[in-house]
Protein backbone atom coordinates (compact mmCIF):
# COMPACT_ATOMS: atom_id res chain seq x y z
CA UNK A 1 0.00 0.00 0.00
CA UNK A 2 1.64 3.21 -1.18
CA UNK A 3 -0.47 5.74 0.68
CA UNK A 4 -1.62 5.61 4.28
CA UNK A 5 -3.69 8.42 5.80
CA UNK A 6 -4.66 7.53 9.37
CA UNK A 7 -4.67 8.96 12.89
CA UNK A 8 -2.45 6.19 14.27
CA UNK A 9 1.13 6.90 15.38
CA UNK A 10 3.79 5.14 13.32
CA UNK A 11 7.43 4.11 13.82
CA UNK A 12 9.61 5.81 11.17
CA UNK A 13 12.43 3.29 11.70
CA UNK A 14 10.16 0.30 11.19
CA UNK A 15 8.56 1.95 8.14
CA UNK A 16 11.99 2.61 6.60
CA UNK A 17 13.12 -0.96 7.21
CA UNK A 18 9.97 -2.43 5.70
CA UNK A 19 10.15 -0.10 2.70
CA UNK A 20 13.83 -0.84 2.09
CA UNK A 21 13.12 -4.57 2.17
CA UNK A 22 10.26 -4.12 -0.31
CA UNK A 23 12.42 -1.90 -2.55
CA UNK A 24 15.11 -4.59 -2.87
CA UNK A 25 17.17 -3.94 -6.00
CA UNK A 26 16.99 -0.15 -5.79
CA UNK A 27 20.37 1.48 -5.29
CA UNK A 28 19.01 4.42 -3.34
CA UNK A 29 16.32 4.86 -0.68
CA UNK A 30 15.57 8.37 0.62
CA UNK A 31 13.15 9.06 3.46
CA UNK A 32 11.86 12.25 5.05
CA UNK A 33 10.03 12.37 8.39
CA UNK A 34 8.10 15.45 9.50
CA UNK A 35 7.92 15.89 13.30
CA UNK A 36 5.74 18.17 15.48
CA UNK A 37 7.91 21.11 16.61
CA UNK A 38 7.41 22.28 20.19
CA UNK A 39 8.66 25.82 19.65
CA UNK A 40 6.70 28.91 20.66
CA UNK A 41 4.91 27.15 23.50
CA UNK A 42 3.04 24.72 21.26
CA UNK A 43 1.27 22.10 23.37
CA UNK A 44 -0.24 19.99 20.57
CA UNK A 45 -1.18 19.95 16.91
CA UNK A 46 -4.50 18.94 15.37
CA UNK A 47 -4.74 17.99 11.70
CA UNK A 48 -8.03 18.03 9.83
CA UNK A 49 -8.31 16.44 6.38
CA UNK A 50 -10.77 15.73 3.59
CA UNK A 51 -11.43 11.96 3.66
CA UNK A 52 -11.46 10.54 0.17
CA UNK A 53 -9.89 13.51 -1.57
CA UNK A 54 -6.77 13.30 0.60
CA UNK A 55 -6.00 9.71 -0.37
CA UNK A 56 -6.78 10.32 -4.05
CA UNK A 57 -4.69 13.51 -4.22
CA UNK A 58 -1.67 11.83 -2.61
CA UNK A 59 -2.02 8.72 -4.78
CA UNK A 60 -1.91 10.93 -7.86
CA UNK A 61 1.20 12.76 -6.54
CA UNK A 62 2.89 9.40 -5.90
CA UNK A 63 2.03 8.18 -9.41
CA UNK A 64 3.42 11.41 -10.88
CA UNK A 65 6.63 11.12 -8.82
CA UNK A 66 7.15 7.49 -9.86
CA UNK A 67 6.78 8.33 -13.54
CA UNK A 68 8.77 11.57 -13.44
CA UNK A 69 11.75 10.29 -11.46
CA UNK A 70 11.72 6.63 -12.47
CA UNK A 71 11.11 5.44 -8.91
CA UNK A 72 11.03 1.72 -8.28
CA UNK A 73 8.91 2.26 -5.15
CA UNK A 74 7.34 5.13 -3.22
CA UNK A 75 5.28 5.52 -0.08
CA UNK A 76 3.59 8.37 1.78
CA UNK A 77 2.31 8.13 5.36
CA UNK A 78 0.36 11.08 6.80
CA UNK A 79 -1.43 11.30 10.13
CA UNK A 80 -4.46 13.34 11.06
CA UNK A 81 -6.22 14.07 14.34
CA UNK A 82 -4.43 15.16 17.53
CA UNK A 83 -0.61 14.95 17.62
CA UNK A 84 1.75 15.57 20.53
CA UNK A 85 5.02 17.51 20.35
CA UNK A 86 7.91 15.40 18.97
CA UNK A 87 5.58 12.86 17.35
CA UNK A 88 6.11 12.04 13.67
CA UNK A 89 3.42 13.67 11.49
CA UNK A 90 4.23 12.21 8.13
CA UNK A 91 6.82 10.36 6.13
CA UNK A 92 7.84 10.20 2.48
CA UNK A 93 9.88 7.30 1.10
CA UNK A 94 11.36 7.08 -2.39
CA UNK A 95 13.42 4.29 -3.95
CA UNK A 96 15.30 4.65 -7.25
CA UNK A 97 18.31 3.16 -9.04
CA UNK A 98 20.46 6.19 -8.05
CA UNK A 99 20.38 8.81 -5.29
CA UNK A 100 19.70 11.89 -7.45
CA UNK A 101 16.27 10.69 -8.48
CA UNK A 102 15.40 9.47 -4.97
CA UNK A 103 16.34 12.81 -3.33
CA UNK A 104 14.51 14.82 -6.01
CA UNK A 105 11.39 12.67 -5.76
CA UNK A 106 11.26 13.06 -1.97
CA UNK A 107 11.47 16.86 -2.35
CA UNK A 108 8.87 16.84 -5.12
CA UNK A 109 6.46 14.85 -2.96
CA UNK A 110 7.06 17.10 0.05
CA UNK A 111 6.46 20.27 -1.96
CA UNK A 112 3.20 18.92 -3.33
CA UNK A 113 2.02 17.54 0.02
CA UNK A 114 2.57 20.92 1.69
CA UNK A 115 0.27 22.86 -0.61
CA UNK A 116 -1.94 20.43 -2.54
CA UNK A 117 -2.92 17.65 -0.14
CA UNK A 118 -6.10 18.65 1.74
CA UNK A 119 -4.79 18.84 5.30
CA UNK A 120 -5.20 21.77 7.69
CA UNK A 121 -3.07 22.17 10.79
CA UNK A 122 -4.32 23.80 13.99
CA UNK A 123 -1.87 24.74 16.74
CA UNK A 124 -2.93 24.42 20.36
CA UNK A 125 -1.24 26.62 22.95
CA UNK A 126 -1.90 27.52 26.57
CA UNK A 127 -3.56 30.76 25.39
CA UNK A 128 -5.75 29.24 22.70
CA UNK A 129 -5.82 27.57 19.29
CA UNK A 130 -5.09 28.92 15.82
CA UNK A 131 -5.18 27.55 12.28
CA UNK A 132 -1.76 27.49 10.64
CA UNK A 133 -1.59 29.89 7.67
CA UNK A 134 -0.19 28.57 4.41
CA UNK A 135 3.25 29.98 3.63
CA UNK A 136 3.97 31.85 0.40
CA UNK A 137 7.30 30.06 0.09
CA UNK A 138 5.55 26.68 0.16
CA UNK A 139 3.34 27.76 -2.74
CA UNK A 140 6.37 29.21 -4.55
CA UNK A 141 8.28 25.92 -4.08
CA UNK A 142 5.85 24.23 -6.48
CA UNK A 143 7.13 26.51 -9.26
CA UNK A 144 10.42 24.66 -9.53
CA UNK A 145 8.63 21.50 -10.70
CA UNK A 146 6.67 23.25 -13.45
Amino acid at each position, binding site marked *: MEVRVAPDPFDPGAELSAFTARAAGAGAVVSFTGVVRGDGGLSALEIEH*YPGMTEAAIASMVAEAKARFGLTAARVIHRHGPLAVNEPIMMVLAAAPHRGAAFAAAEFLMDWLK*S*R*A*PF*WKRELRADGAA*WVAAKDEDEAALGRWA
Partner: protein
Amino acid sequence: MIEVLYFAWLRERAGTSREAVETRAPTVAALVEELRGRSEGHALAFSDLRAVRVAVDQKLAAFDAPLAGAREVAFFPPMTGG
Protein backbone atom coordinates in the same frame (compact mmCIF):
# COMPACT_ATOMS: atom_id res chain seq x y z
CA MET B 1 -28.93 18.82 -4.97
CA ILE B 2 -25.28 19.42 -4.15
CA GLU B 3 -23.48 18.30 -1.01
CA VAL B 4 -21.47 21.28 0.24
CA LEU B 5 -18.54 20.60 2.59
CA TYR B 6 -16.56 23.03 4.73
CA PHE B 7 -13.18 22.47 6.34
CA ALA B 8 -11.01 24.20 8.95
CA TRP B 9 -11.98 27.83 9.66
CA LEU B 10 -14.59 27.84 6.90
CA ARG B 11 -16.34 25.02 8.78
CA GLU B 12 -16.13 26.99 12.02
CA ARG B 13 -17.51 30.16 10.43
CA ALA B 14 -20.27 28.43 8.46
CA GLY B 15 -21.21 26.53 11.62
CA THR B 16 -21.48 23.21 9.78
CA SER B 17 -19.20 20.65 8.16
CA ARG B 18 -21.66 19.68 5.41
CA GLU B 19 -25.09 20.58 4.11
CA ALA B 20 -27.24 19.48 1.19
CA VAL B 21 -28.05 22.49 -0.96
CA GLU B 22 -30.84 22.74 -3.54
CA THR B 23 -29.32 24.89 -6.26
CA ARG B 24 -29.24 25.59 -9.95
CA ALA B 25 -26.06 27.67 -9.71
CA PRO B 26 -24.14 27.20 -12.97
CA THR B 27 -20.70 27.85 -11.45
CA VAL B 28 -18.86 27.69 -8.13
CA ALA B 29 -18.92 31.49 -7.94
CA ALA B 30 -22.72 31.54 -8.35
CA LEU B 31 -23.05 28.88 -5.64
CA VAL B 32 -20.90 31.00 -3.30
CA GLU B 33 -23.24 33.95 -3.85
CA GLU B 34 -26.20 31.75 -2.83
CA LEU B 35 -24.40 30.30 0.18
CA ARG B 36 -23.47 33.77 1.44
CA GLY B 37 -27.17 34.41 2.07
CA ARG B 38 -27.67 31.35 4.29
CA SER B 39 -26.35 32.93 7.51
CA GLU B 40 -24.05 35.59 8.89
CA GLY B 41 -21.51 32.84 9.47
CA HIS B 42 -21.65 31.80 5.82
CA ALA B 43 -21.20 35.43 4.76
CA LEU B 44 -18.18 35.68 7.07
CA ALA B 45 -16.73 32.41 5.72
CA PHE B 46 -16.87 33.79 2.19
CA SER B 47 -15.91 37.38 3.02
CA ASP B 48 -12.49 37.09 1.36
CA LEU B 49 -12.39 34.58 -1.49
CA ARG B 50 -8.64 35.05 -1.94
CA ALA B 51 -8.32 32.95 1.23
CA VAL B 52 -10.68 30.24 0.00
CA ARG B 53 -9.91 27.18 -2.11
CA VAL B 54 -12.51 24.93 -3.72
CA ALA B 55 -12.79 21.33 -4.85
CA VAL B 56 -15.53 20.01 -7.13
CA ASP B 57 -16.12 16.27 -6.71
CA GLN B 58 -12.84 16.08 -4.78
CA LYS B 59 -10.70 17.75 -7.44
CA LEU B 60 -9.26 21.25 -7.00
CA ALA B 61 -11.19 23.72 -9.13
CA ALA B 62 -11.44 27.42 -9.89
CA PHE B 63 -14.33 29.69 -8.88
CA ASP B 64 -15.48 29.90 -12.49
CA ALA B 65 -15.68 26.10 -12.76
CA PRO B 66 -19.06 24.81 -14.00
CA LEU B 67 -21.24 22.81 -11.62
CA ALA B 68 -23.20 20.81 -14.20
CA GLY B 69 -23.39 17.25 -12.87
CA ALA B 70 -21.38 18.04 -9.73
CA ARG B 71 -22.37 16.11 -6.60
CA GLU B 72 -19.94 17.50 -4.03
CA VAL B 73 -18.37 20.94 -3.61
CA ALA B 74 -15.89 21.60 -0.80
CA PHE B 75 -14.59 24.94 0.49
CA PHE B 76 -11.45 25.26 2.58
CA PRO B 77 -8.44 27.49 3.31
CA PRO B 78 -5.09 27.01 1.54
CA MET B 79 -3.79 23.58 2.51
CA THR B 80 -1.12 23.06 5.15
CA GLY B 81 0.00 19.45 4.81
CA GLY B 82 3.41 17.89 5.27
